């Protein structure tokens, strides 16, 4: 069955440089720099990436950062808490707009 997402395509990520080398190379160099140990540990960055992957619902990123967080020694509880952080921010982002709705209600009702 054909699908828009194929797990095998993740391995081809590097091939994006074939059509635009300069930008692609800069992106991958930047990517590698971002995930190096810095003020945040590589492990902390991996958990952030896992949460963001869920927030943006990228199947490639979810596969990649599930493996990566496991490799970096995170446990299932920590990983699911990261997903809840993503869910809380996404849910909160919807709910906080409730104040805009409330403002409008005030504006147009007696």
């Amino acid at each position, binding site marked *: 069955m054909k699908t828009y997402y194929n797990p095998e395509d993740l391995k081809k990520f590097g091939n994006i440089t074939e059509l635009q080398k300069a930008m692609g190379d800069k992106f991958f160099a930047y990517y590698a720099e971002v995930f190096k140990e810095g003020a945040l*540990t*590589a*492990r902390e960055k991996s958990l952030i990436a896992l949460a963001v992957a869920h927030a943006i619902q990228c199947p490639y990123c979810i596969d990649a950062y599930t*493996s990566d967080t*496991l*490799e*970096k*020694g995170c*446990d*299932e*509880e920590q990983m699911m808490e990261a997903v809840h952080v993503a869910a809380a921010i996404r849910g909160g982002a919807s709910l906080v707009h409730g104040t805009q709705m409330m403002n409008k209600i005030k504006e147009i009702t007696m």
Partner: protein
Amino acid sequence: MKSLKALNHTLSNPEEALEILEEQLPNGKKSFQAHLQTIGLFPLKPTQIEIFQVNLGKMCNQVCKHCHVDAGPDRKEIMTRETMLECLRVITHETSIHTVDLTGGAPEMNPEFRWFVTEIRNARPDISILVRCNLTIILANPKYHDLPDFFKENRVEVVSSLPYFTALRTDSQRGDGVFEKSIEALKRLNAVGYGMEGTGLSLNLVYNPSGAFLPGAQDELEREFKKKLLDKFGVHFNSLFAITNIPISRFLDYLIRSENYESYMEKLIDAFNPSAAAGVMCRNTISIGWDGWLYDCDFNQMLEMKVDEKSSQHISKWDGNALLARDIKVNNHCFGCTAGAGSSCGGATA
């Protein structure tokens, strides 16, 4: 759970395992030998014989899902005192040996274990003696309760597997209740001074991934383990060794059954690190099987790949110079020791 051998499983036959390893490489990937040739390391040669690793037998009180030895209570193969005497002769006279590494199964279950350790210590007061203790053996029977004191008396370094600092991950790999018992055993080792600052009694833990993924950075894992084990359980230890699971025996069976074999091999091969290849443990180690046959490492031992030196394939025929000149036997399982930061019985190598 039974051993693969007791189940008459095809993977208990080393020839079957080697056939898979040789013939089922992921598409487009070159063999381990070809990788070594590319970096000028083939044939792989020893640098020295410094670590003398003795497998005291396949008998164990646990049946871990990833075990490369296929050890368990149903395995009865153990080393005799006669073979141990042959080992002692070599340990005494080969001065390049600085470490005797005792492994199994559960080496403590060999009835000659304490005699052997005492004799090694008497023969070579200067060397390190390591025992790969699965921890739960200390609680398995009252006759093992004094093992921490015995280890201390003989200045034995303890190296113990603890795949994770939670019960969920540890028990899924090593069996129900293993985590709780392991923590209790670690506390007993701490109580006699193991892993405690200033005692000189080393207690090192071994982390290996509980599944088809590679271990992360050893120092970062060690920091996390130290914090969690101390905060949650008050347990101390010295160092953490991060070890990659080698695709043989029960772990190979798991990879094939879970359809992770190809992607795992691909990961190992893509992570091939020339520096790790130069530092592989087989270059300064010799591995002795329970029946006295000699191997380049414990993994080759389980694949029954005896050393490639016909004049000295058995401990009774030991010839140190001939062994030092041998070619080390390799196959595609060796990618497990060269991936990323490398892997050995002492953890990362690069």
